[in-house]
């Protein structure tokens, strides 16, 4: 009996390890190739790096425009996350606590946004924001608008649920102490839903940080490229050069992985909470 459980445990770990090695290998290969020389990778793609060669990285940093892209991505994502968080907290609070006409209808209309493929809006947005429309293309606002718009449904859903769980006695107490509706929301309710707010922020930030279709459609000016666009252009120009492109991938991905390693519990919860709330 004992032996049987042992065999099972070994088998189980073995299967998991096989998945880990096969699944993780492309990432390891990316890291190795980034520090190898092009000729070596061509002749022996699976070999280990013999020395740490940082030339690829300096080539990437010199040519890629990645510094600018990081800045652009940070500005767009920070602004969008802030705006989406604020707007959805206010709306979520209204849906949780206030009574008004057409509440249900409005809520479901907003919620429907989760099911809508963003790609339905690409052509109209391209025209409305383009030079024949209001001329916002190639500005930060061109991305912030749609990012916030499509972040709202899931954010409102999560935050409404959180506000509903705030003990109403606390809000009543504040109201008796003379707080108006805004005061109750801002000073009492909002601080109490911080965990949900963190979930919303993480979820939205990662989604926006990785977003590709809107950026590809609405940004064509290189100085406005977000990180995914800069990476895509780099591959278009230098894709033949495996080692340099792998270095560019590392530049784009490693910072996210570092943050992920430190905050993985929060990030995993943030990315799946949206799913689990449905």
């Amino acid at each position, binding site marked *: 009996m004992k032996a049987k459980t042992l065999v099972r*445990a070994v088998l*189980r770990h073995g299967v*998991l390890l096989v998945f880990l090695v096969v*699944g*993780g290998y*492309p*990432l390891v*290969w990316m890291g190795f190739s980034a520090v190898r020389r092009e000729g070596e990778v061509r002749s022996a*793609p*699976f070999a280990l790096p013999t020395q740490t060669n940082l030339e690829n990285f300096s080539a990437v940093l010199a040519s890629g425009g990645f510094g600018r892209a990081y800045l652009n991505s940070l500005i767009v994502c920070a602004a969008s996350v802030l*705006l989406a968080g604020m*707007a959805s907290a*206010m*709306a979520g*609070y*209204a849906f949780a606590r206030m*009574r*008004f006409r057409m509440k249900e209808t*409005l809520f479901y209309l907003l919620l*429907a946004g989760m*099911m*809508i*493929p963003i*790609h*339905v*809006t*690409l*052509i*109209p*947005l*391209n*025209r*409305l924001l383009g030079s024949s429309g209001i001329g916002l293309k190639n500005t930060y606002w061109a991305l912030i*608008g749609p990012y*916030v*718009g499509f972040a709202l*449904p899931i954010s*409102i859903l999560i935050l409404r649920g959180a506000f509903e769980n705030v003990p109403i006695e606390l809000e*009543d107490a504040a109201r008796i102490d003379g707080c108006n*509706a805004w005061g109750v*929301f801002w000073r009492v309710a909002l601080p109490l839903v911080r965990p949900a707010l963190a979930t919303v922020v993480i979820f939205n930030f990662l989604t926006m940080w*990785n977003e*590709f279709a809107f950026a590809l*459609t609405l940004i064509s000016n290189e100085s406005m490229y977000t*990180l*995914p666009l800069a*990476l895509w252009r780099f*591959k278009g120009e230098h*894709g033949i050069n495996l080692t340099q*492109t792998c270095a560019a991938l590392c530049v*784009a*991905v490693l910072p*996210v992985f570092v943050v992920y*390693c430190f905050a*993985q519990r929060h990030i*995993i919860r943030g*990315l799946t909470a949206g*799913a*689990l709330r*449905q």
Partner: protein
Amino acid sequence: MPPNLTLRTPRVHHARFTPLAFLLPALLLYGLFVALPIGESFRLSFLRWPSEFGRPVYVGLDNFRDLLYARPVFSRVFWSALWHNALLVVLSLAVQLPLAMFLAVLLSYPTRGRGVFRTFFFAPMVMPTVAIAILWGYVYLPERGLLDQAIRWFDASFGGAWLSNPNTVFLCVFVTICWRYTGFHMVIYMAGIATIPEELYEAGRIDGAGEWGLFRHVTLPLLKPATVVSATLSVIGSLKYFDLMYMMAEGAPETSRELIATYIFRLGIGSGANRFGYGSAAAVMLFVLALVAATAITRRRRGTA
């Protein structure tokens, strides 16, 4: 003596406009960047541009007719895109979810480095899809790619154009899609398994059930809610999928590489030609399809819940 109930009476909001003030930012942003473009999509789907810079003319349902059957140049691609979306839905349900459940169940036993496995399996979810597309492009690269190089250990002259061959491109991209999302579904299943009370397993063991019996009669039925969540996300996600297919399959023939979302993009934005009307007609059909699927799923879930 009941507690003082006056505090519990429904609060009257004296300012009638307070709810509106709280809702206004969200409604404005949603209306401007989601609702308005969707409405505009419907309008554009009835128009056609005779020349690049000319004024559009109203053509009624002609764009839809052309996409569906009247002009094979479009309809062949459109139906292939629809087929690929359907295939993606079915394959995601049939491959990703069982695999995710399998891994989650393995990890539910006492496992050394459980957290490490979870972290690594989930890691592709935080990677930008562009990075995944580029990296997997090197896996599938003809001759120099990792896949061909690995096959060459056994067959030295092998060389497959994985991503430009119409017979392989879809499956290759699908493997990459699995690589990205399986960890996500695994975490959903792990959360589901964590809610199953240990007593049920103990009771099952006392009744003489083996590990397979426990899985079959305890884990599997009690994971139904997690499966419903995962399946819902899979179906909706597969219907609107764009990223990896668009980025990885560029070199394949049109009828083997499009999903509806990528076809919308190529018609309305990527081509440079004045096909906004066709793209919008495809977009309207995708919108309706997604809405029908979503409504059907919510209905069903309400019914079974």
